[in-house]
């Protein structure tokens, strides 16, 4: 619904299969069209349920449809399963990690050790998330020596690191410079040391000390030096790892090993799986008396272990600072800003530049047969694919465009065809649409289209596909098109010219509208229904739901009782959001003879095998206008 009209969505049938059952998928691979061969041996039963399923028409408004409708370019096609694959029926594997800002690849070992953030000079603004740029403070004109201190500055909100009092000595390797500074900053804030003591080994820290005065007044005197946020996290992590290693009773204790292994998820799974095993620690605790006393884990006790005791009165200081005039609303960090910052950051002054999160390139596999569907090239900048099995190269590409208002209105001048405004389709006026199916396969395809004659939902739009059976030619050779010139374009333009002059071409039932080398156009006639609330509908008694909160003043408007979308509980005549959008579900069934593949030797003819594929497609035609006089 976010797309401009007209649009096409294709429903992936995976939403109807409740549980991804690999055995079922394997069976359905052998019979690709059997939607539900659940009971082996009872074939008749299976076909009955299948028929029942096919009796149901697809409702684009049902809440489940949100999860199955995809724009066609997002769909993949598994050649092994002969099925459309949506993003939910695939698994992804990371091919490479790269920074979206500098587009450099980060090796996965480094991602594992350093975290998934760019280790170079790429930072996002902590205020507005725009990328920061490194710029010099000294605007030396002409003179080439730019040795001045460097800052990160945001070109969007004009924030610079000067606002938090950070300058850099050199324009490279800012991440390490910053992490050193961040440690020394937090240390400085808590210890309220003098500026001279704060200097990091690089002696590049220039503190604007006034900012911290509010938080500093309750200066603690802890014997050990408090750590910065990163260092504290590292200390805590190391502490807990040691604790587990010490307290684990046996070397094969699942908890101990997987924690030491760094929370790897297979290990965690292993722990859960073996939780109730006899060898597990828990069962040994409960079943038989432990031979030794179970060692007790303790929490961090000292600051060197990562313990942080807040300064007495710290909260008061924070509150006082928030209430003070110089802080104000803008001085307090918002929740979105704080969520990416160390937990102590409360004010805008505490926000540090964010290293850019890495992104990934991923290869995609079919979930059921594990075949690779998409494999991009490794280099981050490359846009090419080694393998790319997209659905668009298998299923016919459907494009919809409106024909002129038909039949020819007597008042209209025939030279200027009136193209219906898809954003406000007048109700009860027939509109003709042209649906073009373009075949990208090298085999000719026979397509059968089917649609419920009245669209589901409260708005009864009558839909007639004038030619529900059609053949689409093969995408034989690219050179044909080149040798024919711009054949489709010329034909299309002559067609539009013809229909502009007179309505020579009238859509006839049972005949295709137009046909090209690998495309076929059929006409669809649509009579948009009236919206509930726009009145003048054939009155139907609405006995049930007219009492409670019928607050709109529209009188004598009746609502259709029968509601397929489950929205009939709504008592009033108000439109549901996007209920005026006219979407036509169309069942597409395509048959073609494809060349036989090696893995399927049994077929009646030697070199071709009959294939078929069926799916629901939703055409978004337009919006129905509420008033009857369109």
């Amino acid at each position, binding site marked *: 619904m976010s797309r401009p009209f007209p649009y096409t969505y294709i429903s992936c049938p995976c939403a109807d299969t409740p549980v991804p059952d690999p055995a079922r998928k394997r069976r359905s691979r052998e019979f690709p069209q059997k939607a539900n061969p659940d009971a082996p041996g009872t074939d008749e039963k299976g076909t009955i349920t299948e028929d029942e399923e096919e009796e149901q028409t697809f409702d684009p408004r049902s809440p489940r449809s949100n999860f199955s409708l995809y724009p*066609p370019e997002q*769909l993949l096609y598994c050649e092994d399963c002969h099925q459309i694959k949506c993003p939910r029926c695939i698994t992804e594997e990371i091919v490479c990690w790269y920074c979206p800002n500098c587009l450099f690849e980060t090796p996965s070992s480094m991602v594992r050790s350093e975290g998934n953030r760019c280790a170079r000079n790429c930072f996002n603004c902590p205020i507005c998330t*725009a990328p920061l740029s490194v710029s010099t403070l000294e605007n030396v004109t002409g003179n080439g020596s730019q040795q001045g201190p460097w800052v990160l500055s945001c070109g969007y909100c004009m924030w610079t690191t000067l606002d938090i009092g950070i300058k850099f000595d050199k324009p490279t390797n800012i991440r390490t410079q910053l992490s050193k500074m961040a440690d020394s900053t937090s240390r400085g804030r808590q210890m309220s040391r003098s500026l001279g003591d704060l200097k990091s080994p690089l002696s590049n820290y220039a503190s604007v000390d006034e900012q911290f005065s509010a938080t500093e007044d309750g200066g603690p005197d802890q014997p050990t030096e408090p750590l910065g946020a990163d260092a504290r996290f590292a200390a805590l992590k190391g502490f807990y790892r040691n604790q587990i290693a010490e307290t684990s009773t046996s070397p094969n204790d699942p908890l101990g090993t997987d924690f030491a292994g760094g929370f790897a998820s297979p290990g965690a799974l292993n722990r859960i799986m073996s939780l109730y095993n006899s060898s597990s620690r828990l069962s040994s605790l409960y079943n038989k008396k432990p031979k030794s006393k179970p060692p007790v884990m303790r929490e961090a006790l000292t600051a060197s272990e990562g313990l942080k005791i807040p300064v007495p009165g710290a909260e008061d200081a924070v509150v006082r600072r928030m209430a003070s005039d110089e802080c104000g609303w803008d001085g307090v960090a918002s929740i979105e800003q704080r969520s990416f910052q160390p937990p102590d950051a409360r004010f805008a002054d505490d926000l540090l530049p964010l290293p850019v999160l890495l992104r990934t390139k991923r290869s995609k596999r079919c979930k059921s047969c594990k075949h690779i569907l998409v494999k991009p090239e490794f280099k981050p900048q490359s846009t090419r694919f080694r393998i790319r099995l997209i659905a668009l*190269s298998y299923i016919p590409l459907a494009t919809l465009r409106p024909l002129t208002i038909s039949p020819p209105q007597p008042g209209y001048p025939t030279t200027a065809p009136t193209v219906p405004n898809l954003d406000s389709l007048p109700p009860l006026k027939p509109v003709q649409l042209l649906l073009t199916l373009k075949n990208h396969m090298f085999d000719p395809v026979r397509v059968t289209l089917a649609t419920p004659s009245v669209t589901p939902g409260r708005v009864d739009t009558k839909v007639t596909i004038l030619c529900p059976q059609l053949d689409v030619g093969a995408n034989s050779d690219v050179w044909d098109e080149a040798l024919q010139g711009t054949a489709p374009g010329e034909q299309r333009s002559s067609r539009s010219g013809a229909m502009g002059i007179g309505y020579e071409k009238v859509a006839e039932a049972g005949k295709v509208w137009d046909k090209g080398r690998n495309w076929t156009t059929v006409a669809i006639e649509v009579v948009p229904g009236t919206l509930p609330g726009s009145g003048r509908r054939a009155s139907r008694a609405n006995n049930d739901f007219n009492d409670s909160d019928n607050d709109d003043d529209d009188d004598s408007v009746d609502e259709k009782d029968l509601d397929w979308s489950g929205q009939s509980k709504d008592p009033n005549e108000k439109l549901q959001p996007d209920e005026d959008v006219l979407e036509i579900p169309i069942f597409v069934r395509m048959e073609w003879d494809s060349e036989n593949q090696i893995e399927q030797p049994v077929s009646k003819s030697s070199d071709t095998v009959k294939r078929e594929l069926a799916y629901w497609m939703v055409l978004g035609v337009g919006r129905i206008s509420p008033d009857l006089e369109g």
Partner: protein
Amino acid sequence: MPPKAFKGEYIETDTGNKISRRAQIHGTQRIILGGKTVIQTDAVIRGDLYRSSSSHASSDDPAGAAPSPSVAITVGRYSYISKQAILRPPSRLHRGMHSYYPLKIGDHVFVGERAVVEAASVGNHVHVGKEAVIGGMAILKDFAVVLDGAVVPAGMVVPSWCVVGGRPARIVGEVGEGYGVEGADGGLARERYRLVGK
């Protein structure tokens, strides 16, 4: 749907560019159109903002300097500049000098209505939504999509296949693998070109 065309709204060049007579194009000698590019009514293309290499002796050494008639804007094939869009070469202060840099736009690019593009480079098959703003020296890689009304901050890099939106723009998603296939979403440039001026 073709625009309401009166006779000869578009000038068609030898290479098939269709340029509206009502587009405001400045500095035409510094603009290169790759052919079959559409420039619609009231689009503003600022070819007059180019780097003046002769004004400063030191500024023509860097690699960005173009040959003597320095090109301000390059547009590839089948690109589409919608109504009231503004293409403006990016500029920045470099060693105290305010200088312009060339704006390169690739093939099959769509620039929506009232969009402002000040990018350093726009790749192929890029979609810039209507009323979007591409800040100075931004780089849009191939198959990037900028949603309607987004503000891409200056200097931002949008990687391939990424969808950005919001103010300031962030990466909000990715387009599917089929994006840019001829005839599908992102691959409608030829069709769009064909319908112009009909």
